[in-house]
């Protein structure tokens, strides 16, 4: 028996039959998968924040905060602007200045970022400060400390890694959290992060700076300026915990050449100098 086959009719039938499938099936599956992942992620993030708080409190305990004034307000405002554009939406970021001559900046998980007064004094303009804050923001965004401490398990969730223990209120769990934050402190002040993470933070800082129309070359110039200061012993922690400045500068120059930004971007030197002098 011969059947009449009409391609157009068959096509219409196929489309009508299959149209709801991806919409109801795939999209619903994706939505449910996302909702489930959000539940796990919320626990992870809450834990990351608690961990970051402990680490930040330890940093403040060992290195005095600069008393509130125009400089701390300036750094907090610049940082808040940066985080409003490029921060992780689930985090509230906090920025502070440490009353320390040594040149460095630190990022704790959960959004606590510090820059030393010595680092600010080694800078010439706002673009350089923004570059340093953006570098630290990138560490938080990419969860470099969390990854370095191997808090993530194979399923990429820190919850199964240690949240199960920490989530409880037992004193032993608190001790573990304390020990981990002590380990993170050593990581920031003595051992340093993975060099690959530092280069990644530099590259992201460059992108953030350029996106906000600041002169990204200023950040590279700042790193270059640190070399003699390092020899004078003013950047002990940076030299101990970061890749060699020369290799960071080389990589940043390569990144900048690839992006090839237009000239005449802002540095806001006058505003920076006024704020630093007014401290």
């Amino acid at each position, binding site marked *: 028996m011969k059947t009449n086959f009409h391609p157009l009719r068959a096509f219409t039938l196929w489309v009508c039959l299959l149209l709801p499938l*991806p919409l109801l099936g795939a999209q619903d599956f*994706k939505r449910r998968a996302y909702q489930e992942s959000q539940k796990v*992620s919320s626990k992870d993030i809450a834990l990351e924040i608690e961990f970051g*708080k402990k680490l930040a409190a330890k940093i403040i305990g060992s290195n005095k905060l600069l008393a509130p004034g125009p400089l701390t307000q300036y750094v907090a405002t610049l940082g808040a602007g940066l985080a409003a554009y490029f921060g992780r939406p*689930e985090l509230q970021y906090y920025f502070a200045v440490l009353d320390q001559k040594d040149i460095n900046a630190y990022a704790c998980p959960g959004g606590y970022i510090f820059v030393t007064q010595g680092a600010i004094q080694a800078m010439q303009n706002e673009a350089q400060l923004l570059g340093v804050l953006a570098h630290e923001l990138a560490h938080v965004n990419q969860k470099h400390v969390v990854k370095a401490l191997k808090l993530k398990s194979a399923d990429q969730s820190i919850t199964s890694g240690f949240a199960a223990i920490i989530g409880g209120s037992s004193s032993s769990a608190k001790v573990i959290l304390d020990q981990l934050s002590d380990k993170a402190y050593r990581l920031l002040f003595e051992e340093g992060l993975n060099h690959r993470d530092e280069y990644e933070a530099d590259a992201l800082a460059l992108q953030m700076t350029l996106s906000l129309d600041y002169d990204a070359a200023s950040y590279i110039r700042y790193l270059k300026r640190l070399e003699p200061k390092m020899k004078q012993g003013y950047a002990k922690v940076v030299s101990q915990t970061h890749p060699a400045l020369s290799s960071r500068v080389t990589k940043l120059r390569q990144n900048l050449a690839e992006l090839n930004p237009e000239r005449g971007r802002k540095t806001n030197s006058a505003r920076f100098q006024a704020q630093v002098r007014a401290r």
Partner: protein
Amino acid sequence: MPRNKTLALFFALTCGFLVQVGWAKDTYIQQPNTQLRSRPAFRSPVVSLLPQGAQVQILAEKKIWVKIRHQQKQGWLPRLAIKNSPPMARLNDPSRDLKPHKKLRRRLRLRTVQSATGVRGLMSGRDRLIERAEGRDWNGLEKMEQGQISSAQGKRFLEN
């Protein structure tokens, strides 16, 4: 057209359709009031403010900038302002109780009261001793949190 060729064509079309609808990468705006600009430059005029979580379609890419479409509007955004997953709700909002040290201090205070009732001044002294032993300055952290600046104020500052 032979029947099996037509079927193969339909199969290919269906697969393409499924891939496009089911597995296509979604792109979402991460921050509230994200500024959509007329050109790929921060100094260019803002054409629209996009809400957090808005799903956008990428039309073109230019180094660190992407051209997107949202509803009827088109414009440029920094690449870092979008992600393939929807944004999460803010978790460390200062209004939320995420201060474990406060609970710890309350417990310590209670214990102090139980062990030395009526000895005022000892409580704060003991708190200070414990904090020093831990090497953590919770009061300093609280001051740091109190000194936070709003996102809107920070954004205005960067635009000047």
